[in-house]
């Protein structure tokens, strides 16, 4: 922003307008092109009520299987999360602009995007092909797929820390690792915790696709019930998932209070 050079500032404001134009055009295209009858939304109320009524009362006869499936899902989610935390710590660090030169962080960032981009179903098939049936391919698929997101989150968290204390430690002769440990880590620990717990929660729910690899988690049950219109059973499982997620949310709040 140089008030002394009007040309430059005009150019700058044009640069700022560009993205808005592109985004605006995309929205217009999306909105106009598609045959969406928004009128249908108007009289959806009754139908939604009817749909929900089919979920009540939840069919609790499957409670036992539901609990087993939940434990299985939890197990896969926990192990998958551990895997993706390890991978994300390494890749997230490499992808952070404030930590590595552009020649490293740009390709790593792209790689993470790529890992996210590969559809989970394909990853799951690949893992079944690689290690067979059972929980293991599920865990690997989750770990792989989740790393694409969590690694990005970690990189964002690293980039978001206040640079002044990092510079101060660098000035004192601290090595990269030491700066990470003593200036970056204390600042980003709460964010990291939040992101990791969040990803754990997502992993728990991605068991939807994990039915693919045997053993049968909650998601697999829900999917099957929904496909066979047994909404009252799906409701039971959904309630369990919701309870667990709320529990995680509680734990999250508690942990963050500790780490603040």
């Amino acid at each position, binding site marked *: *922003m*140089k008030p*002394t050079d009007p040309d430059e500032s005009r150019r700058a404001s044009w640069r700022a307008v560009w993205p808005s134009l592109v985004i605006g055009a995309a929205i217009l295209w999306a909105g106009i092109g598609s045959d969406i009858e928004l009128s249908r939304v108007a009289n959806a109320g009754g139908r939604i009520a009817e749909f929900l009524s089919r979920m009540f009362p939840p069919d609790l006869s499957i409670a036992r299987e539901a609990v087993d499936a939940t434990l299985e899902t939890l197990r896969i989610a926990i192990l998958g999360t551990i895997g993706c935390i390890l991978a994300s710590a390494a890749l997230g660090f490499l992808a952070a602009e404030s930590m590595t030169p552009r020649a490293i962080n740009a390709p790593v960032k792209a790689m993470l995007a790529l890992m996210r981009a590969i559809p989970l179903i394909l990853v799951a098939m690949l893992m079944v092909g690689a290690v067979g049936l059972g929980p293991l391919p599920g865990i690997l698929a989750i770990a792989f797929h989740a790393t694409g997101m969590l690694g990005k989150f970690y990189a964002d968290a690293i980039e978001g820390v*206040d640079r*002044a*204390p990092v*510079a*101060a*430690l*660098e*000035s*004192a*002769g*601290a*090595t990269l*690792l*030491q700066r990470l*440990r*003593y*200036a970056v880590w*204390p*600042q980003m*620990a709460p964010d990291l915790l939040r992101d990791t717990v969040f990803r754990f929660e997502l992993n728990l729910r991605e068991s939807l696709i994990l039915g693919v690899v045997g053993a049968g988690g909650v998601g697999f049950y829900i999917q099957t019930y929904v496909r066979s219109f047994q909404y009252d059973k799906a409701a039971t499982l959904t309630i369990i998932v919701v309870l667990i997620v709320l529990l995680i949310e509680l734990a999250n709040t508690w942990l963050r209070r500790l780490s*603040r």
Partner: protein
Amino acid sequence: MTAADSEFAAVLTGVFHRYPGEVRDSISAIDLTLRSGERVALIGPSGAGKSTLLSLLDGRLRGFRGGAIVLSNALDARRAPPRNERAKVGFIFQEFALVERASVRENVRNGRLGRVTQMAALFNRFSEADHSAVDRAMADAGILEFSEKRADCLSGGQRQRVAIARCLAQEPQLMLADEPISNLDPLRAEKILQLLGQTVGRRNSTLMFSSHQPVLAMRYADRVIALNNGSIAYDGSPEKLDRVLLAEIYANDKGSDCPSLRLVG
């Protein structure tokens, strides 16, 4: 480097720097030699380039032109100096640069990081020497009392003293202090300046500090350098710096239309 170099803490020749996107140089045509053991006060109006010059000497300024040798190490305009060089130069930041969520003690201990082995530090293994240096630094800065408090629960002056103690704990050969007494009461301010001076005397290290309190600064310096609009306007003994000169230094910067006020006493 020849042996003769070691009598110089820093040698700058024809240094220029401009922040990206700016129209004016932040420092320009700086020629400067710091002798080992000197205590140099850096004064000059706000925006004169004091912080910029100090960060140059600390090896943190990128994109400068000209020659800069600090403790026999030639600075590179494109990258930070190697670790052992950085450890030799200490810096007290104008805006403190503390790790907010860490305790006072942890912040001060961070000053030791340049001296411990990589792995030891990662697992919080500091030597006895480290611990005692940290304790001494905290005692000297008067912050032992609240050494376990978090840095973000302190008053402004307390925070500033944590920044000072961190630098003391580092035991650097060249100590650069950017407005180290801005938030300190007069007694503490004098004590800190005295302390920094003593530390320098004890270890034949070198001190350069900036300050907006020329009277105080002159009392604790062997040499005063005044910056104005990025250039050196005065470089000499404190004694020769009289009111007239001082008034000139502060009045002469662009964008200042101050009336000439009493500056000393």
